[in-house]
Every structure is written in C-alpha cells, then in structure tokens.
C-alpha cells in the first residue's frame, strides 16, 4: 500500500493546518477509495491544469468574457460592418495595462471567423509597436503578412503611400473579383506615434477613409492621452471612435468574475470532477477569507491580469493529493504576490551594511535630504563606533568602502550623476532610495540584529 507522501510545498503544509474546505457534495471517500480513483483524478487534474493555465497565462478566450459585454458588442458590430457590408472604419481600444484589450480583440476575431460570411473573406495584418520600430520595417511586415513578397519583388517605391497603394492594388488583382476587406491591428499603438512623421499611421488612416478596398484600422493602447500624441493631419483622418476598457466593475461583479474565471467549461470530459470543482469555486466565492484576500487585491489593482496571476499561482498548488483549491491556497498566493521586494533585499544585508544604511538615514534627517558622499557616511559610522557601539568592531576603511559599494551595486544607493572616469568614488554625491519607515520596518525583522545597532537607528542623534 503506497503511503501518502508528505506535502511538498509550504502552501500545501499551510493548507493542512487550516480546516480543509469540504466540497458541497458529501463525498465519503475513504483512503482506499482515493487510491483507486487517483488514476482518473490525476488525469482530470492534469486536464484542469491545462485549461486553467491556458486561460490565465496564455489568455485563450474562454466562453463569454466577463465585465466587457458592452465593449464586445461594439467591437463585433464594427468588424461585422467591415467584413459583411464592406465599410471602412477606424477605432482605438484604450485601457490600462492588463485590462484585457488584446484578449477582447482576440475573442471578437475568433467569434467573427466562425461566421460563415466572414470566413474566407477577411485578411488580417497584425502589427506590434514593440517589434516594428520604424515604418520601413512595418511596411515589410505588412507585405509579408499579406503574402505579397513575390509580387513586390525588387520594386523600389518613391513613398510609403505608393507602396501601400501598390499592395492594395495587388490584392485586388488577385483571383477575387471584388476587393477583400483588410483588418489592420496595431498593438502598442502609442509606439507607432513616435515614428518619423507618423507616416504609417497617416497612410493607414488615409486609406481607411478614402480607398475603395474596405479597410479597418484598430489600435490598442494603454495611454489615455493618445489623441494628443497624434499629429493634426493624422487625427483628422481618424474616426475618433474610442472604446474604453476602464475596469468599471464593482466588487460584487469582481467576485462574480472570480467565480467564472475559476470554473471549468461544460465540455470538460470528466463531469463529476467538473461538478465538484465548480461547486468548490462557488463555495470559495462565498467564503469570508477569500473575499478578504480578493478585496485586498481589488483595492490595489482592478485589472483582470492581476487576478489571473493570483489564480494561476493558487491553482499551481493543486495536485492529486490536494485536489481542490482552498482558501489557504489563495491566502498564500496573495502573500507571495504582495511581498515588499526592497524589504526582502534589506533582510539579506550584512550588519555592517545595515549600519551604513542607518548612518545615511541619520544624515538625511539632519541635513534634510541633502545628498551625501561616502566620506560623510563613514564619518557618521565612526561616531557610532566610537561612542555607542559595543558589539561592532571598528572595521578598516576599505572594508567599509566595500560594503558601501555593495549597496551601490544593489541600487539601494544611487549617485546623483554618472561618475566621470577619473572622479574619486568616495566623494561622489549620492542619495538613499529607502525611506525612514522602510528602514525601521526592515530592522524589526532583521535576523540577529545587535541591540546597540537597533538603538542607534531609533535615537534622534542629540549627541552630534
């Protein structure tokens, strides 16, 4: 008989300490039964992980999108008009990072392609501001995606407009009698705005207004001031149609979205497992601890991407020995998510480095945040050593310098300007990138901190 192994991670251990959440259906499974059905449940769990991971990490559109129904309808209508009725158009999808712009667009396109009238009819060109960093590259990419490289061959064009017109003409002369609608998707739209003369944008918007071929241009951007960045002639050719994804749901809707994102679809092969899992999701959404965890996340950032990241971390803890998600899993995931990274780094510093940080803290207090250099910090440290220190050894200057350089390397201390080649390092002016409260909090949890160091940190330096 195979013994049940010890749980592997802190998360699983934590869940053992908390009362295990029982699923709604009383499943009186004895240990022997678990062993028998573990083979099937392993397969189901693997399936569940596959589906949920794709949903959370790869943003595969699953079922209906939560919280974006109105924007979905708007975008779908717009694209239908292009593909079915041959209307040209342009629109901008605006929303903060992680709000779901790309997911929404992909979802709409997926549903669009399933419509009979659209299937053979739509040409898509996907551009990304991160990849196509200038208009020449962008034009080559457009040519490549429209599969017109052979047609263009070695031709040299006078201007961007000529080239683009040639491409459209080439598409028309293909084996299609009428012109095929083209959809241009520009991701990271705000990066295209920085290209020279905004040529690409000007031309794309121009053909979306005047060409015979139905062309729709959809831009996705996180910048809400995008219209101000457009040149006047570009702006005038834009239809000014903007679709906003402002995450304007409240907490109750957020909880509903949580439940929906966690639920398995109806087509899941193992129905019993799916039923149990979805019931558990319902149970979790009513649980007070879970609501607290989600409220904390909601207040920090409403974007669905953060929610997905949290759920991904929690779901990765689900294994055959721990087949259902628990409130403790979500709590642990939340704790992992919201740890203060600077505090973590300070935790790993040596005592000497901590002393230097305290010295800098005192300098900041006395001189009102004026920049300091190493020599001043060393002086301050010496004062402490000579008057108050019992546990600290009086280290030689090169040793202290090395500790200071380590702080520089970690970028906890930053020079005001880039050091010139021949400047001496000890006299460069610097500033500390930690504030007083962060330092005091870090000292509370710092392991083996000598008491006199702690006292020095707290004292108000009346002995100058």
């Amino acid at each position: 008989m195979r013994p049940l192994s010890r749980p592997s991670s802190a998360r699983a251990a934590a869940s053992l300490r908390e009362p295990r959440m029982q699923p709604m259906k009383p499943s009186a499974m004895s240990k022997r039964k678990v062993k028998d059905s573990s083979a099937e449940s392993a397969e189901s769990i693997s399936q569940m992980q596959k589906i949920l991971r794709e949903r959370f990490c790869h943003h595969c559109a699953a079922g209906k999108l939560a919280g974006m129904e109105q924007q979905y309808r708007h975008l779908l209508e717009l694209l239908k008009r292009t593909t079915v009725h041959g209307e040209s158009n342009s629109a901008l999808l605006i929303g903060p990072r992680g709000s779901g712009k790309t997911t929404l667009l992909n979802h709409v396109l997926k549903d669009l392609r399933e419509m009979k009238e659209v299937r053979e009819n739509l040409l898509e060109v996907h551009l990304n501001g991160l990849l196509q960093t200038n208009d020449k590259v962008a034009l080559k990419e457009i040519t490549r995606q429209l599969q017109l490289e052979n047609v263009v061959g070695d031709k040299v064009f006078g201007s961007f407009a000529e080239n683009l017109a040639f491409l459209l003409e080439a598409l028309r002369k293909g084996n299609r009698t009428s012109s095929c609608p083209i959809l241009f998707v520009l991701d990271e739209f705000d990066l295209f705005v920085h290209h020279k003369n905004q040529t690409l944008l000007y031309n794309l918007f121009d053909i979306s207004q005047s060409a015979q071929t139905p062309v729709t241009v959809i831009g996705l951007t996180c910048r809400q001031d995008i219209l101000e960045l457009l040149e006047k002639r570009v702006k005038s050719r834009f239809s000014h149609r903007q679709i906003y994804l402002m995450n304007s749901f409240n907490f109750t809707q957020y909880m509903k979205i949580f439940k929906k994102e966690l639920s398995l679809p109806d087509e899941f092969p193992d129905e019993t497992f799916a039923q149990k899992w979805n019931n558990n999701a319902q149970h979790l959404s009513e649980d007070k601890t879970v609501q607290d965890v989600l409220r904390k996340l909601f207040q920090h950032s409403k974007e669905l991407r953060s929610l997905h990241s949290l759920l991904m971390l929690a779901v990765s803890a689900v294994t055959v020995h721990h087949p259902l998600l628990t409130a403790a899993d979500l709590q642990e995931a939340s704790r992992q998510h919201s740890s203060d990274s600077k505090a973590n780094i300070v935790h790993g510093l040596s005592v000497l480095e901590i002393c230097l940080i305290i010295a800098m803290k005192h300098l900041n207090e006395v001189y009102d945040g004026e920049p300091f250099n190493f020599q001043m910090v060393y002086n301050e440290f010496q004062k402490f050593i000579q008057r108050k220190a019992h546990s600290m050894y009086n280290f030689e200057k090169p040793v202290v310098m090395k500790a200071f350089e380590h702080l520089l390397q970690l970028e906890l201390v930053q020079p005001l300007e880039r050091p010139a080649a021949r400047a001496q390092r000890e006299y460069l002016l610097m500033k500390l990138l930690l504030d007083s409260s962060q330092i005091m909090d870090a000292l509370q949890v710092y392991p083996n901190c000598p008491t006199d160091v702690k006292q020095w940190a707290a004292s108000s330096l009346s002995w100058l």
Partner: protein
Amino acid sequence: MPNLEHPAYPAADLLRLESLVPCRESQVSMLLSIFGERQHFSFPSIFIYGHTSSGKTYVMQTLLSTLQLPHVFVNCVEYFTSRLLLEEILIKLQSCSGTEQTSPVRCDSLNDFVRLFKQAVASQELQDQTLYIVLDRAEQLREMEANILPAFLRLQELTDTNVTVVLLSEIVWELFRPNTGCFEPFTIYFPDYSIGHLQKILTQNHPPEYSADFYAAYINILLGVFYMVCRDLKELRHLAALNFAKYCEPVVRGEANERDTRKLWKNIEPHLKKAMQTFLLIAAYLASYNPVRTDKRFFLKHHGKIRKTNFMKKHEKTSNHLLGPKPFPLDRLLAILYSIVDERVAPTANIFSQITSLVTLQLLSMVGQNDQLDGPRYKCTVSLDFIRAVAR
C-alpha cells in the same frame, strides 16, 4: 523522505535534484509547481531576485538540466548588446534539439528575432513542451533598446508559442519597470542563507585529510567573525580556504628559514625605487588638502600671524577632508616638496618623469587641458590612510 514531489517528473530525478540544491528546497518546490507538467503553459515571464551567491543561477541551471527541460541559458553581461543577445539565443536554440551543426544566424532586430524564433521552435521536436529562456544578470537589459525588456516579458504572446522567459537579477523589479508600464512578471525572491544554512553548506566541502567535525568547528569560528561583514557564500568559501592553512599551523610543523631570506632580498629592491615617489605623493596630498593660505604658515621657517576673517569663519565647518581634493599647480607641489625634503633637490628631469609616472599610476590626476598657460595642475587622488601608511 524526499521533500520534492511532482507527478510529472520521475522520483529518481527529483531525489537527485534535491541532493544538489541544499537549503533551497522550498524555492525549487515552488518553481516545480509553477512549471507544472511539461506541456502545460506557465507564467509568460518570471523574475527571480536575490543577493549574489543566493543560488539563483545555480538552482535554475541545476533544475533545468536535471529534469531535462528544454532551455536556453544566456548571460546578459556577456552578450551585452541586443543584437548579440538575440543572435546567441537563436544559436543556442539550434543546439537545443541536439543538432551538431549550427548554421550562422543573422538577426538585426526584434522583428526578425520573433520570426526566426517561431521558425526554430516549429522545426524542433519540442512536442509542445515549455521552452525556458533564462537571462542571467537581467539588469543589463535596461541598458539596451527600450523595446527589448517589454518584448521579452511578453514573448509568449508575441510568438504565440509555449515559452517562459526567466530573468535573474539582484536588483529589485521596481527599478526595471518602464515608464509606460509593461507586462508584469511573476516575482520570486531567493532569500539570503541564514547562518545555519551557511554552516551546513560550507561544511559540506571539507578537505578529505581532516574530519568533518574538525572542519565544522573551524567554520563555526569563521562565521562568528566574518558573518557581521559578509554573508556572501562565494566570499565566505574563499575566506575559509584562505585561512584554513593558518588554522592548521599548530597541527602541522613550521616552515624552514632559508626560503625566507631570499624572499626578503627580492623585496627590498623595488622598495628602494619607490622612496622618491613616496615623498612626491605626500607633497601632493598636502598640496591638495591644505588651503593655499596656510602654506606660508606650515612650510616656512618664519611665518607671520594669520588673522581670521569673517569669510573664513563661515566656511570652517565643511572640512576639506570631507569634500575631496582640490587642484594645485605644479609650482606649489615643488615648493612643498623642497620644504619637506631637507637636502637641496634640483628640479631635474627625474622629478618630472616621476610626477608623470604617478599620474599614470592614477595616484595623481591631471586637471584641465594640456595646453594651459599657467602650467599643469594636478589633484591628489589617494586618501589620508594611504598617505599615513606610506609615510611610516
């Protein structure tokens, strides 16, 4: 009882992995659960941060190679421009599938990279397995073009393949984030080793001639002294190796004397040559740090009184020692030198060549352009402690 467990990987491999990464079980466990099964998707980007020698590079390399997960490992400082980095990733990707021949790769931009990457992944027998791209010293990515870092963070989306990018750095994520935001990676902290962990790891590699207990006692003493200053595992290992011989001396017999005398004689020769340079250096230090008006007082046999003016009182507080060295002209240096050295020293070419060699050694630095009308000006770049040590 093994600590690491995962249904997707054979238990034997996990056991071996556990033995290779002491004191890092919980981090490896977390990574395993995030990676999931081989073909499952994972976070598009993971950011691992922690102090140097906290095991980030070692653990990642060990984990990926022990479990034979397809991966590419590149150091961003070694391949410090975007072009070098992208080409190296593509080259390493070729050898990932085990092909002996690596054809030269030409990759000008990120656009080309994405296209070539998609081709490479499609042609390989990855069978839907997650490909891991690990970028070590990732803080260097900030120095490259602005689109490199955001693109790597969302490489999974840009290439539409099952790839996860892992960034390793000792700088916190907040200092990486671009102004307009980016795809946030999943951050993992590799905590510093506690004193107990360090004890355990350092006592693992004890020299075979001595017993483990003897070495453990030595490590205990070593940590007691050095832990205050240094928690870096690599440095502690080095210190342990360095000082172990001294620790063993009471146990081992002393060295012979003959070898010592020959060494002494060899040492004296260069010291004689350095004597003149030492005097010059001290003179330069005095010139830099004493204000000009005190020259007369310190260096002349007969000096007058110096009246303190209001101007001087206001600026007394800022000690010259704290602010740094001031430049001085060559004449002043020579004047001070003559007053320090008792015998008459003529301004021979020897003196001037020695001054130049001090500049080359960077003990003095030249201030201003070469063709100044007043003559060259210098600045002393060594500290008071160095001067004190040299003056003895």
